[in-house]
């Protein structure tokens, strides 16, 4: 099994001829991913790392039966790229691109939702199921197949933590990097049900950050709908409070959003909360039902 990305995943890379697109197409291939097509308007007929390039996502899907997209196109064009892939029937789109205006992302999120497509990101490292496939840019070296699921709001901190799990002799079923933008396609609460249903996941590591209330919402979900053990870490306990202009944001999250409220909510929901990243592997080993994670 694993979550969202499996051995059946066939990836079309949008923006494959750019630097990032090319580099990470190679890395995805080395991970064992079926990268079946690339799209860059005007570059049809060429190829990148042996992958045929098409002018449109529809042509790519028709020729390659791609069922997932990895989007690297620059921010001003990301909205169109996502709408194009959803219209071509893609139901999983990982958006690596950063600096997409949130007004664009609002349109993208609600459009995808109406069409039944899932977005991971934007500004995210993507998703990987070791031994099966990777859609995104998480370094290959941090992974090893196993039974721990990882959901994270961070980028490089995810690599750090996934790597720590590996060095402890444990492996991962699937790791999802949600991205840290104001509007993201998939939140903790959206991702947790997949892991609840996945027979190959025994425990979940949740990496959160200060700001927003996504971790509090996740805690609420865990308390009522999640039966597997959860280990969490919240980055930014010591970060200075951010400066804001206007007070609307504070009104929305009144009384929530600090490291303290997140840690308290997660602990109340039964999660083990690590104080530092390097405490996570031991906590995970402690909550796994058996040595099954090895």
């Amino acid at each position, binding site marked *: 099994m694993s979550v969202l990305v499996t051995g059946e995943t066939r990836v079309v890379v949008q923006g494959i001829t750019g630097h990032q697109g090319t580099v990470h197409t190679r*890395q995805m291939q080395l991970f064992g991913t079926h990268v079946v097509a690339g799209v860059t308007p005007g570059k049809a007929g060429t190829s990148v790392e042996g992958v045929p390039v098409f002018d449109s996502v529809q042509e790519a899907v028709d020729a390659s039966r791609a069922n997932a997209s990895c989007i690297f196109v620059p921010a001003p064009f990301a909205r169109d790229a996502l709408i194009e892939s959803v219209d071509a029937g893609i139901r999983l789109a990982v958006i690596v691109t950063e600096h997409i205006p949130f007004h664009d992302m609002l349109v993208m999120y609600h459009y995808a939702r109406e069409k039944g497509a899932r977005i991971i990101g934007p500004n995210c490292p993507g998703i990987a199921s070791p031994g099966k496939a990777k859609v995104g840019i998480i370094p290959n070296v941090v992974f090893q197949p196993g039974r721990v699921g990882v959901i994270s709001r961070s980028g*490089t901190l995810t690599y750090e933590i996934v*790597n720590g799990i590996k060095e402890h002799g444990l492996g991962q079923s699937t790791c999802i990097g949600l991205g840290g933008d104001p509007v993201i396609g998939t939140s903790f609460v959206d991702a947790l049900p997949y892991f609840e249903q996945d027979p190959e996941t025994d425990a979940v590591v949740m990496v959160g950050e200060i700001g927003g209330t996504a971790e509090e919402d996740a805690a609420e979900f865990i308390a009522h709908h999640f039966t597997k053990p959860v280990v969490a870490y919240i980055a930014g306990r*010591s970060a*200075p409070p951010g400066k804001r202009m206007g007070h*609307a944001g504070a009104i*929305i999250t009144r009384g929530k959003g600090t490291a303290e409220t997140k840690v308290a909510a997660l602990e109340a929901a039964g999660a083990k909360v690590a104080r530092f990243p390097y405490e996570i592997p031991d906590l995970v080993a402690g909550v796994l039902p058996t040595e099954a994670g090895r």
Partner: protein
Amino acid sequence: MVKLAEWRGKELFRRYGVPVPQGQVARSPDEAEELVRTGAVPLPCVVKAQVLAGGRGKGGAVRFANTPAEARAAAEATLGLDFKGETVKEILLEEKLAIGHEYYVSLTLDRNLRVPILIASAQGGVEIETVDDKAIDRQPVHPFPGLAAYEKRRAAKLFGLSGPTARSLDLLLDSLWRAFNQEDADLIEINPLALVGDRLIALDAKVVIEDDAVFRHPEYAEIRDDRTPLEEIAREKDIAFVQLSGNIGVIANGAGLTMATLDVLKEFGGDPGVFLDLGGTDDPKKVTEAFLLMAQAKPKAVFLNIFGGVTRCDTVATGLVEAMRQVPAADRFPLVARIRGNNEKEGIEILRAAGITATPGLKESAQAVVAAAQGRA
């Protein structure tokens, strides 16, 4: 974030049909006096310092004038004033209105619901944080149909408005909604929104434009908050830079890793001061640029925490050693580097050979840099 000064926010409001008082901006006492003398700004008038911080009324940054001479005096008293760290360079002169009631209204993003949210309260004119939760209405607005008529009626009912005044609110909210979307605003806040006769008028304007959308609005590119020269350079290089009071500089890639690094440093008694977040990249060129930028901030010690993805650690290490050579001897500082990822052993060897402390463990590195900052290394 591009935070617009009040007068710019009100210019934007005028373009979208949100009623604002008659007024103009001035940058000298001569200009202020002239605006009033020619009748461009009617008397009596309000003279408001154009700073971004709140609490201007209590802080002496809002004055009143009944004559051109008084307008001049108010301008002289306000221009050049230091208000909560901002120097007043501009003042807004506006007609003084007879206010009936003050409301609060704003549009911003609700990150959790992933829709814009209309926030309204009948208790305006005070800091909204101090208003009781029950007196604040939060109305999520779906981006596709946009602001619906019933949502506007709900606000009118909350404000206790009917007839032409309710109609005035209806038009005003439509204008705000269009401005929020077309200008790529992060926040549009009117506090207070004043009832003057049977008209609603925005007495203040807080508008924040989203940074990432400035490519669509080149007119905002020049309006930036006051940044230190170092922050400006960092911005140009797409490096997140925060300068605080501590003495340890932190360079890391990614916001989460940067925050985790701070958490660990604090735990071991460190006092982190300058943070450079390279974003998700491990590009050696960017690491080098950040390093040279950090040297200019003159920290006591620097902790470099990079998790390598695509780039090999030895490549990053070589760039770092080269960068260290470029730092003038007087500006050198103890450096503790922690580089993880591909070829980390080779990277660590290169750093150690150049006399740089390098260990793979986060805990050990944090302890080493705290010791160095306290002069114990």
